[in-house]
């Protein structure tokens, strides 16, 4: 049979032109403006809302909300970036052929990782006391009235090998190690993928398969541990054994939505001619399936805690469900991340046509941000949180900055790995 894939222009590059940059910059500027207004409003309004209700609590400062927002978006967009690399690696480990023309789209998400690493570490050093309760040294001092034996018991997880309450060496080490290895694997896979364009042959494919396997083993551990470190440790007393997978599944759906949206966007601009509704259908199935997977984990966590009714566990949901600020967002979360994709993407046609997928994936990106909002804000801000201009602005700033970096990374090389051994298989992909 003739090599039909060769009929396409395989050397096509994404032209990240001034027009696209301008529209992304517009979103960024709108976001920055909203953020600035939000900050000013919080600074001015901060004094009026002192209800004096928090007995042992400290006075609330407007910048705590800024830090919490920084943290939500740091964790969220880091997740989307690493999921791009993860999904790329999965394609090689599973020896998948269908996804060949969109491999570069997945990989490009990883371009955000170095920026995410810097932002995350800097944010931690600026905002540690305002986000993480366990960073206060008096918790570990037996003579202090605020001594907390539970947190003291967990202290080594953050401070080893230093003295508890001093400098969180182990925590920082993990953060640096995870980002270091993630960026390393991303660069490794990227350089192999681009080298394949020039050299050809199947050697690079085998190399990438091995490196993908190494990365997946590392990611299996690091994704879970990073979720404990960056999200679960905010509610220091509380723990959940499936929290790592819950955060991962939220990242995964958001990452898949981003991959789908970029693919549809590129197709709309006339790129990726090889990608037809069969490939889009498969992406839609992933988004649909993993939305249900996320719901399964969310509900598994909720049901067991609700049913067992152990106070040290239920506190997490009481903080959220019984709160005037967060109570309704729990239902927004379930509605946007389960009912919407479940009902809209159920039919075959909805998964094959860009219009439905575009709508659902955009809403899912917002929906999973709400999920992270619900993980971070109740533990950091309590009743002072909520979704206001600052939240919307920060989300837009981060989103457009990440889009800028990702599309810039995508424009650097060919859109299609033209010497990939399974290009032909992908062309004939039909479901």
């Amino acid at each position: 049979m003739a090599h039909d894939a060769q009929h396409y222009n395989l050397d096509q590059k994404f032209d990240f032109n001034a027009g696209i940059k301008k529209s992304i910059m517009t979103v960024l500027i709108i976001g920055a403006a909203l953020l600035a207004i939000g900050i000013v409003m919080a600074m001015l309004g901060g004094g009026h809302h002192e209800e004096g209700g928090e007995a042992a609590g400290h006075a609330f400062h407007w910048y705590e909300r800024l830090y919490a927002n920084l943290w939500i978006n740091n964790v969220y967009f880091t997740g989307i970036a690493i999921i791009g690399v993860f999904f790329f690696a999965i394609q090689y480990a599973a020896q998948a052929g269908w996804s060949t023309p969109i491999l570069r789209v997945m990989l490009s998400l990883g371009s955000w990782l170095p920026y995410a690493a810097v932002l995350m570490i800097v944010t931690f050093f600026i905002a540690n006391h305002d986000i993480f309760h366990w960073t206060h040294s008096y918790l570990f001092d037996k003579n202090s009235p605020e001594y907390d034996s539970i947190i003291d018991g967990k202290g080594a997880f953050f401070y080893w090998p230093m003295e508890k309450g001093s400098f969180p060496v182990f925590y920082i080490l993990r953060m640096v190690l995870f980002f270091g290895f993630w960026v390393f694997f991303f660069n490794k896979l990227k350089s192999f993928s681009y080298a394949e364009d020039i050299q050809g042959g199947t050697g690079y494919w085998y190399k990438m398969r091995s490196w993908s396997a190494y990365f997946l083993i590392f990611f299996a551990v690091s994704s879970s541990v990073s979720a404990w470190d960056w999200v679960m440790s905010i509610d220091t007393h509380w723990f959940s054994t499936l929290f790592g997978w819950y955060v991962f599944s939220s990242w995964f759906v958001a990452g898949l939505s981003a991959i789908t949206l970029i693919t549809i966007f590129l197709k709309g601009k006339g790129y990726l001619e090889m990608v037809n509704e069969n490939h889009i259908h498969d992406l839609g199935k992933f988004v649909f399936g993993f939305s249900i997977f996320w719901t399964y984990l969310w509900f598994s966590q909720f049901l067991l805690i609700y049913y067992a009714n152990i106070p040290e566990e239920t506190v997490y949901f009481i903080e959220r469900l019984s709160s005037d600020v967060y109570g309704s967002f729990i239902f927004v979360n379930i509605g946007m991340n389960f009912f919407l994709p479940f009902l809209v993407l159920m039919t075959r046609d909805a998964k094959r046509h860009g219009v439905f997928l575009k709508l659902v994936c955009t809403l899912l990106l917002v929906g999973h941000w709400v999920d992270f909002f619900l993980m971070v804000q109740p533990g950091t801000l309590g009743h002072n949180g909520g979704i206001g201009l600052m939240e919307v602005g920060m989300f837009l700033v981060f989103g457009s900055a990440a889009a800028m970096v990702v599309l810039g990374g995508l424009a650097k090389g060919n859109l299609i790995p033209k010497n990939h051994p399974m290009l032909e298989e992908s062309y004939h992909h039909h479901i």
Partner: protein
Amino acid sequence: MERDTHFILGVYEDEDVLLHAVKDVRTSGVKIHEVYSPYPVHGLEHALGYKRSRLPIAAFLFGLLGTTLALTMQLYMMKFDWPMIIGGKDFAAIPDFIPVSFELTVLLAAFGMVGVFMISSDLKPWAQPRIFDLRITDDKHVMAIDIANNSTLEVEKIKEILKSSGATEVNNKSFE
């Protein structure tokens, strides 16, 4: 509808030949009764011009029935018929009902789908299947042409079309 009894059969050995043959035979104006093959041939329904199955709609409706039934049943039992306090929860503790509702949704969707499929394909236990050629259970693909359905064409002409489309044998088959 009266059961048709006289058929012409084209026997094919290769699925690629068969797929092209189906297209050729259809474009030459012959109406195909059915194609029998020992294993699923990818793209065959498309080549035969079959409409997409409406089975998923039945599955969805049966699933919906399962959810409704499960929630109604649990609510009736736990709140109205025999209220019991379990774990200090409300009588109508919806989160507790979700696992059972999920299971019944899947069960009814699956059973409903199998049932609808069997009824719509006429697969009843006492059905007498018509075997066009025993080799369709082994290694041959058979295209059956209903003579009564192609009354405008002559039998010899149909046989010629089948032969030229790549059939290794062309046979007649009649049922009582």
